[in-house]
């Protein structure tokens, strides 16, 4: 910046100096232009400062306002999150397939799952077995669980309720089956081997592979276990 112009504007010249400088401004166009540049710059800056003060007072008077756009972004984010959660829950509960379905075979009273009933009329849980045979597994599970309160049927109903839940192929149902099998294993009974087997399958389907592996190894190591050979096959193919 021209020092003389600054002195002129800052009032740092004597009256004589001011007069002489004023005459120079009249005759020297470039000096006059320089003065205008300084004036324009300072004035522009002051206008900007004013603009900031206005903005600040508008935006901080009632605390810092959250702009509408920000609110819209948060709302959109929440909607997306809820949407994703719904999709995820739906996906998790969607029947998929059982990886170890071929190992799910287990005799029903009188016959196998795929067979026909012969003595179901005598079985107190016949309605549940009927639902099971008709592949209405959710219904079967509910019916079996209804018999849990009968001490004579607790073990068997828990086992078949667990198997029914497994067959629904839904993750949440398989998770529910685990404690049913565990409750059977808590006491020594004739369904222990079956409960252990289906617990291993449930663990595998829930991707709890380490737990499943140790269960399958336990079964494979027991030559008297009715699923010993199948456990060996699973260990060979799936681990």
């Amino acid at each position, binding site marked *: *910046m021209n020092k003389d112009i600054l002195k002129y504007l800052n009032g740092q010249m004597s009256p004589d100096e001011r007069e002489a400088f004023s005459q120079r401004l009249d005759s020297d166009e470039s000096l006059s232009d320089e003065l205008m540049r300084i*004036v*324009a710059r*300072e*004035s522009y800056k*002051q206008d*900007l400062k004013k*603009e900031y003060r206005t903005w600040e007072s508008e935006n901080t008077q009632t605390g810092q306002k959250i702009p509408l756009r920000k609110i819209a972004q948060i709302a959109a984010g929440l909607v997306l999150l809820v949407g994703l959660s719904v999709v995820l829950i739906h996906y998790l509960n969607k029947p998929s397939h059982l990886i170890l379905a071929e190992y799910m075979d287990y005799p029903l009273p009188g016959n196998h799952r795929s067979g026909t009933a012969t003595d179901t009329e005598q079985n107190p849980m016949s309605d549940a077995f009927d639902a099971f045979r008709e592949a209405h597994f959710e219904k079967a599970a509910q019916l079996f669980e209804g018999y849990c309160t009968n001490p004579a049927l607790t073990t068997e109903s828990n086992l078949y309720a667990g198997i029914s839940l497994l067959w629904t192929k839904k993750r949440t149902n398989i998770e529910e089956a685990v404690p049913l099998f565990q409750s059977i294993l808590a006491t020594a009974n004739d369904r222990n081997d079956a409960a252990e087997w289906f617990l291993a399958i449930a663990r595998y389907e829930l991707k709890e592979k380490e737990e499943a592996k140790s269960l399958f190894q336990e079964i494979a190591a027991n030559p008297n276990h009715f699923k010993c050979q199948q456990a060996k096959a699973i260990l060979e193919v799936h681990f």
Partner: protein
Amino acid sequence: MGKRFYIFDRGKEQKLLKLLYGNERERNEAFSILRKDALKYCFIRGKKLGFNSDETSELYGETMLAFCESLQKQGIDASPTGYLKTIIKNKSVDKLKKTKGLIFINTEQIELSTVEDEKRKDLMELNETGIKKVLHAMENINPLYKTLIHSHYFLKMSLAEIAMGQNASPEVIKTQLARAREAIRKLIK
């Protein structure tokens, strides 16, 4: 919203850059976008460094002046917003030196300011009297003249460019500018 995605910013920055070097209307459009960012960044920076409202408004003013001057020298060639942020950062450090009586040797070291800094300030800047004179003059002239002076002497727009924006001939603008200059001179005197 915290940090933005670079990939989205990139398109916006390129568009801004194109607008900044476009015609007057495009430049104004870019400025209106950048101004909003600058106001917000200055506010945040000012709060962070403990500036009062006056100091922050000064920071904003100096930032926008520096940005305009860089633009006139074609000095902005990549990201206008990034450039703006850098100016705010540098200017705020300068301001901290002045207002808090500190000088930074680098970001780690802080020392007390020297008397030379103050002497230099007297030689380089308008004092309160100077600013008052300028403001008095600019506030008491025809607003059209004020715009003309800003456009021609600060934004470095040619007479032809101004004439085009105002739908007038360059000769008319030249005459108006001469009158504006005369009016300012009288008021400053």
